[in-house]
């Protein structure tokens, strides 16, 4: 399948649900958690999802697409085309559609499932370091929700992992064992006083109510077995609790009542070109950090001429990401056992998450994960070649087996001029202006990348390896990087959280300051980015928001 056109029948009932308590827009990790948490407490929930409900049986074919050199990353989950148009007005291109999935499960269908928490300092950057801004909530406020999210999705992790923020509860599953390449990094690290440890992974090692990992080695971007957590699991659980999912139903705008105090309906389109209106008592925009600001801009009205929930003027602003960097080396004559282990990631390095000089931070936090699949797979190498027979085998054998690598995501600081806007000159398949991404990560992120690249290079050289690639989006010409090396990972901010309605879009409960019944649950509410992979925090925030919504609905 190479397009995202509807493959379901036109007869599927996509009409609105009568009497809904809550309408959730988006069936990714954020929407799934909110929907499940509320549905299980008896609320009538409807989820409107722009993309389709994917056939799980087709995941093997998607996995093959991932390994086939013909296909680009966005094709794996049918992203691209008029539906997913976007613009980039910043200094470099931004491969948005290679970094997201529209459909039931959302971007978690293709994520790497690395789930560290944010650190305490990430919530207190202004008070601790005098930069950026504090969140209106602390790590302690979110801590029970982190534990809840870890239980929900099933995380394999080590309670004794050094550097990580404090935790009271054990991880639900024992950590994944270190891979061979993790051990190589660990051994080299011991010589350099660098600690290599296991990373918390949302991968079922056998104790959760889904398939066990079967070792395809393709977690990012497809897990055919379903051992990797993806949010379609909690969408299904929400449905089992009575929630309704309407797929292929992109929301066009949110309408509010005469006074502009409450949302009254979500207007959505269906594949039969019909327009529907879903009413509810409460609305949760959980369409991700790219699409949620866009939806609010498209919902402008006489009361909100600059976009819904934008009386602060900060909608779309303070957008962030985690600028990536990576190091790949070759260990001549060594078998690094790449590809054999299964999960793409099992180890990491968080020693450089905290700053070298806490009183004068010069660089972003560094979140490093050692990679068990550095370089192309044998199948990919075979398909890239023109050779056949013994010649082909000899080529693949010569190329494969000695690579080793470490990837990293880096903190960037929020800046007002990094933003998601609207490009009114370009429209999607429904005639709506598309999102525009304008982002320049800045020096703080560049210095973080330099730190991580140096650490990764030192480790590989300590092993006796040759570093053949050591680049980050801020240290090299961005648009010359490989698709995987470019930015766009972990979109955050744009609908940030705060106590002050003049400087933020949502309050600490994730309710918009402007509208009494509109919540936003997404990475967009992040005030600072930290460096940890953000999805666990997004799910924890969603569970917290669900508690607030529940209390409000009961009242």
């Amino acid at each position, binding site marked *: 399948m190479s397009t995202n056109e509807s493959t379901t029948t036109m007869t599927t009932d996509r009409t609105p649900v009568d009497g809904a308590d809550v309408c959730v827009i988006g069936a990714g990790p954020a929407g799934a958690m909110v929907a499940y948490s509320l549905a299980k407490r008896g609320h009538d929930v409807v989820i409107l999802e722009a993309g389709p409900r994917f056939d799980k049986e*087709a995941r*093997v074919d998607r996995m093959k697409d991932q390994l*086939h050199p013909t296909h680009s990353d966005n094709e794996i989950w049918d992203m691209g085309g008029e539906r997913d148009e976007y613009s980039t007005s910043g200094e470099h291109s931004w491969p948005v559609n290679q970094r997201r999935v529209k459909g039931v499960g959302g971007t978690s269908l293709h994520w790497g499932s690395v789930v560290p928490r944010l650190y305490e300092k990430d919530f207190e950057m202004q008070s601790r370091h005098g930069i950026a801004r504090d969140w209106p909530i602390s790590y302690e406020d979110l801590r029970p929700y982190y534990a809840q999210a870890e239980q929900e999705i099933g995380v394999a992790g080590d309670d004794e992992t050094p550097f990580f923020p404090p935790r009271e509860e054990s991880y639900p599953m024992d950590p994944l064992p270190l891979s061979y390449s993790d051990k190589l990094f660990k051994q080299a690290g011991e010589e350099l006083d660098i600690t290599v440890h296991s990373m918390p992974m949302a991968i079922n090692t056998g104790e959760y109510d889904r398939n066990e990992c079967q070792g*395809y080695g393709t977690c990012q971007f497809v897990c055919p077995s379903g051992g990797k957590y993806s949010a379609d699991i909690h969408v299904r659980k929400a449905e089992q609790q009575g929630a309704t999912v309407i797929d292929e139903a992109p929301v066009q705008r949110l309408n509010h009542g005469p006074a502009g105090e409450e949302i009254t309906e979500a207007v959505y389109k269906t594949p039969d070109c019909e327009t529907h209106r879903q009413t509810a008592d409460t609305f949760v925009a959980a369409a991700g950090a790219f699409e949620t600001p866009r939806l609010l801009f498209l919902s402008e009205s006489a009361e909100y001429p600059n976009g819904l929930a934008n009386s602060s003027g900060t909608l779309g602003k303070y957008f962030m990401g985690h600028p990536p960097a990576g190091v790949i080396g070759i260990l001549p004559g060594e078998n690094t056992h*790449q590809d054999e282990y299964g999960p793409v990631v099992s180890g990491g390095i968080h020693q450089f998450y905290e700053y070298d000089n806490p009183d004068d931070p010069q660089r972003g936090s560094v979140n490093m994960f050692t990679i068990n699949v550095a370089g192309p797979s044998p199948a990919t190498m075979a398909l890239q070649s023109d*050779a056949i027979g013994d010649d082909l085998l000899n080529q693949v054998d010569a190329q494969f087996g000695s690579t080793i690598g470490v990837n990293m995501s880096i903190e960037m600081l929020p800046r007002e001029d990094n933003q998601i806007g609207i490009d009114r000159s370009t429209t999607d398949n429904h005639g709506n202006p598309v999102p525009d991404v304008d982002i320049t990560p800045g020096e703080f992120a560049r210095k973080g990348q330099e730190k991580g690249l140096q650490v990764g290079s030192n480790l590989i050289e300590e092993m006796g390896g040759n570093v053949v690639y050591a680049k980050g989006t801020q240290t090299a010409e961005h648009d010359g990087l490989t698709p995987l090396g470019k930015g766009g990972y972990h979109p955050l901010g744009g609908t940030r959280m705060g106590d002050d309605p003049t400087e933020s879009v949502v309050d600490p409960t994730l309710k918009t300051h402007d509208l009494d019944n509109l919540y936003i649950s997404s990475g967009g509410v992040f005030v600072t980015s930290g460096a940890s992979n953000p999805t666990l925090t997004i799910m924890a925030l969603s569970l917290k928001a669900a508690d607030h919504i529940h209390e409000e609905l009961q009242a």
Partner: protein
Amino acid sequence: MELTRRDAVTALTAAGITTTAGCAGLTGETGSDAEPMEVLVSLADVLYPSDIEPTPEFIETFMYGRITDEESYREELTAGIETLNQLAADEQGGAFHTLSADQRRSVIENTDLRTGPSEPDGSDVARVNYYLLDELLFAFYSSPTGGELIGNTNPRGFPGGFGYSPSLEQ
């Protein structure tokens, strides 16, 4: 070395993928004198290393068990074999599976097979590359047998279990 169905079936069954159904697509008529499987085996025989003896069981498992849209794949298979036979007739004067191994290799080397584009929606030859040659090569190099030849019995794309982690060699 004969490729067997055993390891593939074990792994694919573990993955919840039924591998026993759907063989009709590989045994039906294609417009040539050969059954599709006969052509695929003759193709795999020159694509795979010389020590490997491809079997219908191996190909059936990977070529078919991994294809979820059976009808559309069957159409591509039928059309692809027709194209392959046309190329073989032009180059060597016979249907592909009737040629010697050297002649089959010559067909591949003297046409856009392998060297040309491989695309699911491309030209006739591009589709042969995508649906026949690449499927066969993917099957082999993501199988334990293919992986073992390059020092990896659980290559990416194969559900051979997780957590394999030998001790460091000192």
